[in-house]
């Protein structure tokens, strides 16, 4: 995994494809796409000269579940993504180089591919105590992050950690773990949230960038629209049961066996933006709801701090109480109701008293 610039052509040749076959491929592609007679040579030229996008993959406070997910991608296979589509120059978890040799690549990439490499960040930097809760290569991770972000083309924030903060940023967040977009504010950041994100979503984002040479369209919160514009709920195969009003009421009831909607069991599908219900997991085998468990909303902001995974309504922790909105609302309405009744009673008594007074006056 050297930092030398490698074109797509050299990768293709390395995989044992002859130059003759390469040109056949280019002609065939141009013809099948209905392009003009010159297109074949232009495609060949592009593949011969276009460098693969260099990627620096860093790890802050995290659990490496994003990497674990990434290496299980089926479409495209992760080997194609890592070995052919991008030039993964640095990933301290899976790279062969170690120590100073590995760290030297960072400096090299900054100089050689200034403004051209993609910085993929897994996890986030803790800012408390000068960032000493995450030391990477002898330095606080936050410094390394800022240094590499300076010359990056764009940043991919892998997972809920880098996008929102995740478990290490859950209350009371002792290390002050902070999502990437709160630390780096001058670079385009693509959030790919999830704990972990779906493998195909991760490689899909990488594929988009290498294929089109630009960043995917993002939504208001910085997530790629193509994977995060709809809720789990919108494409859930159990949605008809939701609309019909058929819910699982208990984990072992008949409705659970029949595969009814898990809304009442606290499924966070209606508030979670992700592609689980369309792309699914492990090569499209299943996803949590299909396995009979509600969505826990792992790709959403602060999903650890929204009360139980098994409650529909969020618990509100304020003034030392822990109740959901309806319990608080009902109690407050009860108090107001009692106050109104008491006020009405006092009014009635007063009115009677003043009437008697008036009567006394008149007589």
């Amino acid at each position, binding site marked *: 995994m050297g930092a030398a610039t490698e074109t797509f052509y050299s990768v293709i040749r390395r995989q044992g494809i002859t130059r003759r076959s390469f040109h056949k491929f280019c002609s065939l592609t141009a013809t099948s796409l209905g392009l003009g007679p010159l297109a074949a040579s232009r495609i060949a030229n592009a593949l011969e000269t276009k460098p693969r996008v260099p990627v620096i993959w860093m790890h802050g406070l995290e659990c490496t579940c994003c990497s674990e997910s990434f290496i299980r991608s089926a479409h495209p296979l992760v080997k194609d993504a890592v070995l052919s589509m991008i030039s993964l120059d640095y990933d301290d978890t899976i790279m062969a180089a170690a120590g100073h040799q590995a760290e030297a690549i960072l400096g090299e990439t900054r100089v050689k591919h200034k403004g051209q490499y993609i910085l993929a960040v897994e996890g986030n930097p803790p800012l408390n105590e000068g960032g000493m809760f995450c030391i990477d290569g002898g330095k606080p991770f936050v410094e390394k992050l800022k240094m590499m972000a300076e010359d990056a083309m764009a940043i991919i924030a892998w997972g809920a950690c880098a996008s*929102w903060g995740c478990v290490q940023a859950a209350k009371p967040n002792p290390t002050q773990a902070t999502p990437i977009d709160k630390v780096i504010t001058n670079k385009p950041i693509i959030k790919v949230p999830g704990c972990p994100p779906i493998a195909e979503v991760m490689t899909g984002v990488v594929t988009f960038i290498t294929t089109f040479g630009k960043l995917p369209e993002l*939504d*208001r*919160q910085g997530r790629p*629209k193509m994977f995060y*514009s*709809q*809720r789990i709920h*919108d494409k859930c195969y159990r949605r*008809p*049961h*939701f*609309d*019909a*009003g*058929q*819910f699982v*009421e208990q984990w072992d009831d008949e*409705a659970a066996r029949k595969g*009814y909607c898990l*809304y*009442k069991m606290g499924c*966070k599908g*209606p*508030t979670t933006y992700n592609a689980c219900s369309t792309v699914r997991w492990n090569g499209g085998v299943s996803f949590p709801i299909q396995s009979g468990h509600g969505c826990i*909303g792992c790709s*959403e*902001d*602060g*999903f650890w701090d*929204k009360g139980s995974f098994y409650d*529909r*309504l*969020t618990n*509100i922790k304020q003034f030392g109480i822990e109740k*959901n*909105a*309806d319990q*608080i*609302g*009902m109690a*407050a*309405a009860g108090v*107001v*109701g009692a106050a*109104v009744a008491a*006020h*009405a009673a*006092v*009014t009635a008594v*007063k*009115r009677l008293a*003043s009437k008697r007074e008036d009567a006394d006056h008149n007589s």
Partner: protein
Amino acid sequence: MMDAIAPGSDVRSDLSAIAADASGERAVGRPTVYVYEAPVRICHWVNAFSILVLMVTGYFIGSPLPTVAGEASDNFVMGYIRFAHFAAGQVLAVFFLTRFLWAFVGNHHSRQIFYIPVHRKQFWKEVLHEIRWYAFLERKPKMYVGHNPLSQTAMFTGFTLFVAFMIVTGFALYSEGTGIDSWQHKLFGWVFAIWPNSQDVHTWHHLGMWALVMFVMVHIYAAVREDIMSRQSIVSSMISGERQFRD
């Protein structure tokens, strides 16, 4: 307030207008003022009905009814409840907006619920008087043609602000279903910049509902009570538009 009626002012001057019918029974003339114009009254009742529908359906969206048996394709309970909620929400939004626009065209009273004259000392003095009246510390209520200063404050905060909040968060939540290319998301999607996790928006929308429940309780109680205690028509005024002073 400028519409406080001083004793002996022109509104009361026709108190003495007394007629007698053939049998000698005397009719009592009572001062009457036209307060609530037709659009105000229509908006009031449409909004009241929509809010009632929204509260009931909204509660059942958050805490659905027990599971119905049978094929999913034979039932659409949640679908109908949600449809009623969304329909009532859009009706409320339209009539709330209409009511707001009417404030620019209508009479002085139609503007009352959209502002509080915070800078006027006299206003706060009268708010205090009204608080004292409700705390049974004043023997006689002051008469007002429109809202009294306390009720104006309550209407602005308890109704106008809360309903506006519910409409904004409601459309934001609705945009989750209609998608990020919808006009609802373009207009109200900024709510998710404040609360990135829409679960929080749901929670606030719930709390807003309960705040409105409390408003409705106090609103109805105060209207009925004033009708009796302040010797002026309140409840029927919202139907006829006229406020009658009974003594």
